[in-house]
């Protein structure tokens, strides 16, 4: 990382856009999206354009607020994640991806994590009839390809930012470790971090555990109650979700979340109630599920987070031309 304090806020628009750091970061980001399209295109994925608003968006987690839009008198939402649309899109193609913008009004405490933006972009991938293990392979392959592509195409910009290419040797050469949520909790508690066994790994815990490794790794099997209804529950281990997070090395934290999806109509209704959701909101989606949605697995990889990781930036806002931090009114 470049040594700027995590809590530092973005400067004014002119200073930010004319900064060599911003320009290098955005060129690296350009290389990341090009690498993404190259890898997924080579592997048979169809890129679709994501919707920006809809009657519902994904149920959200960790206290983020959705943004309402007056849609001819109907209350529509800005997408916080296009996950429901990804599932629906599998009615058209078996392997799809979006480079999708999202808006989440994150809680104020996330303004200083260095990892949260209110407006951000996700590389959203979904595969029909895939298992979690199959999409773990896709996520690993994609991140490796992105890194290799960027190291090749963005040498000058990485040098400008002082990013050491050696940081990615293990990522490029070794498979990513897979640990269960239970193991991650136990590891954190062993490091005297008070991580709840029922909840997602908290922000500080993610950073701590990320600092312990030299290559990205997966945390799998989050407990039910820690995620929204779209994450599928294991049929053999009740209470365990067939999901995952991809955690970067060197303290950069979470890059990507995903898993097998809940797709059966009755389970969707049950899981919606378990997550405090009102099924009436999801009428169009449930109508599709009642007639049949393919089982699937997929993930969403945060473009700015991956950019921050590869470029070695202190804060995620450095990877966005017009960064919006929680609670801070900026252009």
């Amino acid at each position, binding site marked *: 990382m470049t040594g700027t304090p995590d809590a530092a806020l973005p400067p004014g628009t002119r200073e930010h856009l004319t900064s060599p750091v911003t320009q290098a970061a955005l060129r690296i980001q350009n290389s990341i999206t090009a690498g993404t399209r190259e890898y997924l295109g080579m592997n048979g994925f169809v890129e679709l354009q994501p919707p920006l608003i809809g009657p519902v968006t994904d149920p959200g*987690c*960790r206290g*983020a607020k959705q943004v309402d839009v007056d849609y001819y008198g109907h*209350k529509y939402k800005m997408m916080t994640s296009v996950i429901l649309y990804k599932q629906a899109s599998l009615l058209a193609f078996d392997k799809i991806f979006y480079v999708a913008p999202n808006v989440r009004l994150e809680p104020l405490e996330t303004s200083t994590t260095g990892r949260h933006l209110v407006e951000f972009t996700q590389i959203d991938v979904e595969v029909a009839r895939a298992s979690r293990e199959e999409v773990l392979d896709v996520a690993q392959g994609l991140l490796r390809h992105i890194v290799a592509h960027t190291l090749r195409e963005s040498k000058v910009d990485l040098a400008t930012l002082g990013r050491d290419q050696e940081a990615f040797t293990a990522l490029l050469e070794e498979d990513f470790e897979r640990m269960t949520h239970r193991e991650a909790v136990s590891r954190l508690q062993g490091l005297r971090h008070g991580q709840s066994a*029922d909840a997602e790994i908290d922000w500080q815990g993610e950073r701590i555990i990320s600092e312990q490794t030299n290559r990205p790794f997966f945390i799998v099997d989050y407990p039910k*109650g820690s995620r929204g209804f779209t994450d599928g529950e294991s049929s053999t281990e009740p209470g365990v979700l067939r999901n995952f997070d991809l955690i970067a090395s060197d303290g950069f934290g979470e890059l990507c979340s995903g898993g097998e999806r809940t797709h059966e109509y009755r389970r969707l209704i049950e899981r919606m*109630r378990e997550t*405090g959701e009102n099924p009436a909101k999801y009428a169009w989606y449930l109508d599709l599920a009642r007639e049949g949605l393919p089982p699937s697995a997929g993930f969403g990889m945060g473009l700015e987070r991956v950019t921050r990781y590869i470029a070695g930036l202190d804060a995620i806002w450095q990877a966005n031309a017009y960064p919006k931090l929680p609670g801070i009114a900026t252009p």
Partner: protein
Amino acid sequence: MITARQLPEDAIRARAREGSAAIFPDVAGYGRSLFGADVDTPPDELDRARIVPPVFVPRRLEKMFDLAREPVYGDVGLSTVLGGFTAPSPVFLCAFGSTQVAGSGLGIAASEQAGRLGMPMVIGENVVPMHGYGRMGESVEDGLLGRIRAYADAVPDGLGGVVVQQSTEDADAEVWNLVYSDPSATKLLETGRLAFELKVGQGAKPGLGGMTVLSRTAAGEIAEQYTVDEAFGRDQAMVLRSSSPGTFTGEILRQQIHLMRNNYPRARAWVKLHPGRDVGEAARVAWAAGADAVTVDGAEGGTGWAPSVFLDQVGLPLVECLRRVGKHDASLLVSGRIWEGARALKCLAMGASAVGLGRAALLAVDEDATEGLVRLVRCLELELRLLASALGKYDLADLTTDDLWFPGSSARTEQDG
């Protein structure tokens, strides 16, 4: 005209005359009356129970050792921790829901006085959908934000807390997310004095969702979200708005609490239950899932609009809820016609950690908008001290059912003492 003296003729004739409007209290009283079980209902079992001081008071002797003098009622300690909040006495302010009574400035007055008292305050689940939040051009006065600000400005450091409810349909309004990310709530959040309450049900209408009476114009604006019923007749200006009661199983309740704790790690998680027959089991599920408090609203609970049959005949009385839930290490909060010290003490003796003031609090602020609630609570606290002292107990945690006598209960033997 025929007569039938064995039947409630007036009520039958009212139904024949007015149709479904007659199954509710008189709609003309909506917005001015606080509802609840009929005033003609005889005092319930809890009111009939007597508080029975013993002759021998070993705990008074213990207290005398501490003080080196005879203890008096002023030595009874009332301060407590309820639902994760520190309170000066085991009393909290109940949610008033979206009733117009609370919306007409009384909600703000009650919030300010509760803040001054340092007593935890619950804010009703549909204040936001009905009165707005208080941002982006909405009136701050009646909205959620106005109540939070009034409370937060008055509350002493280290005391009290604000609890914001949400139920199934209010999830659409994302009340919890709004509050959690609002700069006005930051101080409460940072000092551990914000909680969210999952509203499973309410005392006056177990098994029903929230109900309010609205003008046709107001109803049209929320028709997409709520059931709107012509209960009072098509020629009337007012219509009935109902929420869904929500669907719960043990697993759904457990997971919703897990999700609350995961999504809002800096807020406390409370759960409100209606006086259902499985209230004991539901409370245990909630505590096991990590709820910081379970609130049980006895069937005597009120304020909001409900069909008369629910007010008078549905749900367990508070005393039976207390029996079915029993004492627990986590907080059990109860409400239902609480207004003075005796009923409060009986609840505490039966296992409650604290009692909530609903209608009584609204009446108090209606009587005096600046001091009414403060005076009501001070009276209740004085009575609690006098009663506990009479029982020879100076810590409310020492109260037990031995301190109560229920008429008709089997005669006690000497060994029971």
